[in-house]
Structures are given as structure tokens and as C-alpha cells.
């Protein structure tokens, strides 16, 4: 696919590194007329025609552009795949009737591509291989299923998506066109050129099934709406969401499903495509709830929903569905739980799912790993706190701080006896005189977790709960033991250091 550059006075070629030399990777129409073609060495091209403009390729930008066009093609079918660096495959088997037929769909696609300034070739065929070959090497047209043989017959063997090496060795024995080998005995061909040759031929002929791997996962539930008059206002978008959601609800209910992740795809008239996804914490079916979810998502968008000249199509897809018993939908006795879940969904949609959390207890005795906050939408009903309370009762754990610092902060501490609590310490430039202390509670690191037991956060910790003169309470620990230093058992042991890990009320 090339952008038409008619305003460019010079023939334009794009080059990139191929093997050890710069070779042309794309040429525009003017350059083509001069006899330049892709694959030609850049030096040779310059020698033939000094007056060409040569630009280095930008592979990433090309890929991004192709993916952008692929997104845009989602308006025709959800089954869109990238085909090499310059092609797209669309499975229009199911949706062509919406446009009044395959030819009308292609005409619509062509009109829009031309308007966007792209030169393109398009072919419709019954197999991926045949469509690929016809679009690149044959007459762009719509071919009926079953005619693959006729399409391929006159085309060069490169049309079969073969390795260049295989094409070259076929050429050496005089096989140049698909027709040259299509009726040859199969086993000698396989013996000489490998299984790939016949597999590609079989696939192109439809004798072997070839699935299309869509670029984006295909949603199990999809509803879409086209607009004759493009819509631009957020309200209209949300109204459309609700309408589409109501349609999805019917399909979801029939199969006993609810939506866990929903994606809204908005197609702008100028070809830009915007995808907005929202997650839910329980299977959702109600159109009002889905609308509320997207209200928050739209409000939270970092860059406003830029409608340009308007959206001419909207699609709502349920990307992830989950079984959802009907009685859960009309929440009766569990009214509170339902309200809470709705709040969690709203907050998650606006703030981000990872920002709305619930604390869970983890099976670790290292304080910072003993608890974590996990996204509330995904958290399991049992968060491990019962097990924690049982464990605490058995082990008679010392109190834990109300707030734990994300990262223990180093402090300067003065202790009276080597392994005793500190008498005073300095934290964040303020000096605290300890008037009461409780401890130590020794927490050893898991010896199996790190081979290097002397690394700073893997030493044994002695925790103290201390109170200073003004009543402030802190959770401090000494990392490492003086004993180790004195006895010289660990010759490389660093001197113990003090940290503040949390604050008590």
C-alpha cells in the first residue's frame, strides 16, 4: 500500500537494508514508470536515475500505519489480519450482506481508501492463498469460490507465498508459473523442494484448510450501529452504547452469560479508530450499568474523545464473557453487595482497575510481603484474613503498624546495647527520643529465596515497637546482628543498619 504522492516533483523510492546492501523497498508510480522496482539495489537505482528522491524506510511507522488501517477495516468485519508488511486479510464471509454484497463492500472500501489517499489493490477469493496471489500478481477482482485454480494458473510462483530460495530453485528447472507445476506428480516435487511448496499450493486451492488469525481477539458478542449522519456529542455516543448494550443483553441472556470486559470501538469518518475498554467486577448484562461504566471511562480519558467530523459507526463488543446465573441480575437480598460492586466498577473505570483495591493476606512472614492490595474487580472472596487471624492467635504475633511504608526508610539510630532497642533515632531530619520500646521480634529472611544471604534486605531483622516523648509510635528494625560482626562468622558482614518501616496510631 502506498500513499499517492502526486504533489512530489521527484520520483520517490524508499530503501532499506537487505542483506549487505541498501535495496529499494517501495517505489511510487513515477519511479515505476522509470523502470525502478522493489528489490533493486539503491546504488544501481541512483546510477540509472540520479534525479530520484530516496528516503530510508521506517519499518515501525509502516507497521503502525498498517495496523491503523487494519483497525479501520474492523468496520467491515472483526476478522482482520495483517498479511506480511503491506497487506491485510479480511474475512468478509459473514458481513458482506450489510453492504449489499461483496462487490459493494469492496466499492465502499475502495472509495474510502482513495479518499484517504492510498493506492491499493484488492481481490476477493475463496481462500487466503488465492486472494493473496490475485491481489498482488493477478487482476484485482472478485473471484467466485471454486475458481482458485483458474486464478493461480497464469501467476508466477512467487504468488504462492514461498521462500525466495524455493522460487529460485524452481526457476532453475524451468518452473516459473503456478500452471507449470500444478499438475506435476506430487512426490518428486516434495522430495526435491520440500513440503512447503505443495502445502501452499493446497492451501491456495482450498484443498487444505487455512485459518485466518485475526490481529485482535474476536469478541463472542458484538453489536454495531452505522450512522448516516455522523455523531459527535458524547451524549449521543453514550446513548448509542446503551442501545447497543440492550441488544447485547438479549444475546447474553440467551446463553446465560454476562460481560466481564467490554470494548467500545468508534470509527471516525476520516478513518481514525478509537477503542475504549472497560472491565467489570462481576458478569454484567444491564444496559444502564454498561452505559454508566462508559460514562466514567469517557470522563477519565486522558485525551478527550476527539470526534473530528464525527463517528459514522460504533461497535460494542463483549471481549470476555462469563456465565452469570439469571437470578443474580435482579439483585434482591444482596442489595448491598450489588451496590458495592457497582461502585467498584465505576471507580475502576474512572481511576483505573489497578487503583481500586482490597487488601489480601499473603502467606509470608516478611512484613512487606505479608499483605498486598489487589484490584478489587478481580479479588477472590477469600482474601486470606481468616488464615492470618488463626496464625496470629497461634503464634502470638506482636502488633503490626497501621501504616506500612512502601519502602523501609534508613534512619540513624543510637542503641544502648548492641542488640537492644534504640535510645534515640533521626527520621526525616527530626530527632526522636525513645521512651518505651517493645521487642525485639526477630524476622529471618527465607533462606531458600536468595542465595546471597548477606544482601541488604535478606539479613535477619529485629523489629521494635517504640514510642517517643510526644507519644508517636514507630516500627523500627535493625537489619543484621552485631553478633555476626563480632564473632567474625561471616567475615564480609556489613555492620547492622536501622530502618523505619511503619507507624502506629
Amino acid at each position, binding site marked *: 500500500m502506498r500513499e499517492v504522492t502526486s504533489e512530489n516533483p521527484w520520483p520517490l523510492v524508499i530503501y532499506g537494508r537487505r542483506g549487505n546492501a541498501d535495496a529499494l523497498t517501495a517505489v511510487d508510480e513515477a519511479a515505476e514508470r522509470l523502470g525502478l522496482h522493489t528489490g533493486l539495489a539503491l546504488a544501481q537505482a541512483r546510477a540509472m536515475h540520479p534525479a530520484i528522491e530516496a528516503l530510508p524506510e521506517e519499518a515501525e511507522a509502516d507497521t503502525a500505519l498498517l495496523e491503523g488501517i487494519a483497525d479501520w477495516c474492523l468496520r467491515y468485519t472483526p476478522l482482520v489480519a495483517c498479511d506480511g508488511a503491506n497487506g491485510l486479510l479480511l474475512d468478509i464471509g459473514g458481513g458482506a450482506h450489510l453492504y449489499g454484497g461483496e462487490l459493494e463492500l469492496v466499492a465502499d472500501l475502495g472509495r474510502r481508501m482513495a479518499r484517504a489517499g492510498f493506492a491499493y489493490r484488492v481481490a476477493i477469493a475463496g481462500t487466503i492463498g488465492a486472494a493473496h496471489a490475485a491481489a498482488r500478481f493477478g487482476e484485482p477482482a472478485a473471484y467466485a469460490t471454486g475458481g482458485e485454480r483458474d486464478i493461480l494458473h497464469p501467476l508466477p510462483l512467487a504468488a504462492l507465498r514461498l521462500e525466495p530460495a524455493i522460487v529460485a530453485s524452481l526457476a532453475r528447472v524451468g518452473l516459473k508459473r503456478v500452471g507449470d507445476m500444478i499438475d506435476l506428480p506430487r512426490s518428486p516435487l516434495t522430495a526435491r523442494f520440500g513440503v512447503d511448496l505443495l502445502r501452499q499450493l493446497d492451501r491456495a486451492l482450498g484443498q487444505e484448510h487455512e485459518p485466518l488469525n485475526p490481529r485482535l481477539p474476536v469478541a463472542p458478542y458484538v453489536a454495531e450501529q452505522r450512522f448516516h449522519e455522523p455523531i459527535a456529542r458524547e451524549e449521543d455516543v453514550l446513548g448509542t452504547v446503551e442501545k447497543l448494550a440492550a441488544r447485547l443483553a438479549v444475546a447474553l441472556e440467551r446463553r446465560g452469560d454476562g460481560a466481564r470486559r467490554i470494548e467500545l470501538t468508534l470509527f471516525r469518518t476520516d478513518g481514525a479508530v478509537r477503542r475504549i475498554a472497560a472491565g467489570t467486577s462481576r458478569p454484567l448484562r444491564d444496559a444502564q450499568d454498561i452505559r454508566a461504566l462508559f460514562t466514567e471511562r469517557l470522563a477519565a480519558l486522558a485525551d478527550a474523545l476527539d470526534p473530528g467530523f464525527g463517528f459514522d459507526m460504533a461497535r460494542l463488543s463483549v471481549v470476555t464473557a462469563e456465565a452469570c446465573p439469571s437470578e443474580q441480575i435482579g439483585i434482591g437480598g444482596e*442489595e*448491598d*453487595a*450489588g*451496590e*458495592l460492586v457497582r*461502585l*467498584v466498577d*465505576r*471507580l475502576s473505570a*474512572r*481511576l483505573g482497575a489497578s*487503583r*481500586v*483495591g*482490597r*487488601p489480601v*493476606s499473603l502467606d509470608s512472614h516478611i*512484613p512487606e510481603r*505479608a*499483605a498486598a*492490595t489487589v484490584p*478489587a474487580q478481580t479479588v477472590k472472596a477469600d*482474601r486470606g*484474613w481468616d488464615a*492470618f*487471624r488463626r496464625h496470629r492467635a497461634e503464634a502470638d*504475633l506482636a*502488633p*503490626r*503498624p*497501621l*501504616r*506500612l*511504608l*512502601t519502602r523501609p526508610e534508613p534512619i540513624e539510630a543510637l542503641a544502648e546495647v548492641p*542488640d537492644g532497642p534504640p535510645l534515640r533515632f533521626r527520621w526525616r531530619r*527530626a530527632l526522636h527520643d*525513645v*521512651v*518505651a*520500646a*517493645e*521487642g*525485639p521480634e*526477630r524476622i529471618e529472611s527465607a533462606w531458600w529465596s536468595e542465595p546471597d544471604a548477606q544482601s541488604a534486605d535478606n539479613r535477619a531483622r*529485629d523489629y521494635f*515497637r517504640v*514510642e517517643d*516523648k*510526644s*507519644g*508517636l*509510635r514507630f516500627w523500627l528494625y535493625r537489619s543484621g*546482628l552485631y*553478633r555476626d560482626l563480632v564473632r567474625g562468622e561471616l567475615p564480609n558482614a556489613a555492620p547492622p543498619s536501622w530502618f523505619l518501616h*511503619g*507507624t*502506629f*496510631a
Partner: protein
Amino acid sequence: MIEELRQRLRALQKSTGLAPGAAEAVVPFGIEALDAVLGGGLARGALHEIAAPGEAHLAAATGFALGLAASARNLLWIAEDMALTENGAPYGPGLDLFTLAPERLLTAAVAHKRDLLWAMEEALRCRALGAVIGELRGGALDPVAVRRLSLAAAASGALALLLRAQPADDASTAATRWIVGAAPSTEQTPFGPGAPRFAIELVRNRRGPLGSWILEWRDQDERFILATPAQPVAAPPRHRPHQKVA
């Protein structure tokens, strides 16, 4: 139009605890002197500001807020990212000192003050939450935003608590404003820190009277009690028989 204004007026009165019939919707401290000042207790369905006298006392202010919110079945704690990295996130294993089972806690981290106020308002509209705690690191508050929070709290009957790292002197429509710091606990026991104590000061009260008290949290009774006035602090005990010999 007029009917709408009347309704808003009623809601406003309710949010300030001035409307008749608001007396039963309170969280009593169970401390006569304090409850008398507050008209029975801390009004539900209203916004209360709790500020630490300085950032170091924030954990104490947090504990006080949790003690007040402990009766709620579900509780949401919203804080800015900065607050969580600077002062630490609520730590599940430490919450139950304030009889708050971690299962009942929902947390939200927000990037801006604007999101904090939005999330608080949204949460206050949810009837399933008994209390919403919003933690604010600094800066003044838009009085309109605060009024919106009061109205939302009044509508749902939830306890709205605004936790601030520093006392603020901005105008506020909050029903009460407190300054809560830590108070020494050591005279209770010669061994280690005792039950947490709070020096609380009521600096603003819609109902009028102000005052200051020293409270102590009794986790076995799940409530605050009035501590005896603080005595001069004794020297740290040298003998600690409960301590393991390292």
C-alpha cells in the same frame, strides 16, 4: 423550583446536624463530656475533618478516623499516590487493632485532588458504604467541593471523614473539625508502649462548644475512653523482663 430549593435547604440542615430528628444518626463516643458537646455523638450523614497537627502525627489521626469508622460494615479509603508513598499505605495486619477487619476495607489510590473529591462524592452516594475516608496531603479545598461532599453524605447517611496531614484554616462547611495527634501512653505500663492515646482538639463545631481531650482506644471494648490527664513522662524502664534475650 422553590420546592427544589426547599429540599436542598433540608439536606443542608441535615448535613449540619441541625435538622430535627438527626439525633439518632450519630456515632456516639460513649464519653459523656464529648457526646454532650456533639449532641449525642458524631453525626452520620455529614462531613468531618480530622487533621494531624503535623505529618508525623498522621498515623494517630488515621487511627482516630478508623476508630470512628470502625462501626461501618464497608469502608472506603481514598488517598493520593503521594500520600501512600510518603506516609505508607494502610497495612492489613495492623488494621484490626481498630477492630476493622481488612475484609471490610476498600482502597482507592488517586493521582490528583480532583479525582479524590470525585471518588469521595461517588462513594458517598453508594448506600453500601458506612464510611468514606479521604486523605488529603495538603493544599486548600474548594468550599463548593466540600459542600457537595456534605450533601452527598447527607443523602446516603454515610460518615464522611476528611483526613488531612496538616491543620487547615480554610473556610469549610464540615460539621466538625478536629486536630488529632498522638499522646504519650507510657504512664499506663512500665513495659513498652501501652494502648494508643490521642490528644484531640475540637476546633470547629457547628453545634457550638469546642474543647480538647485525651482519649485512649480500648480495642477489647472497641471504643474510645477518656484517659486520665497526662502525667509527666517517666524515664524509660531499664528492666524489661518480657523481652527475649537476643
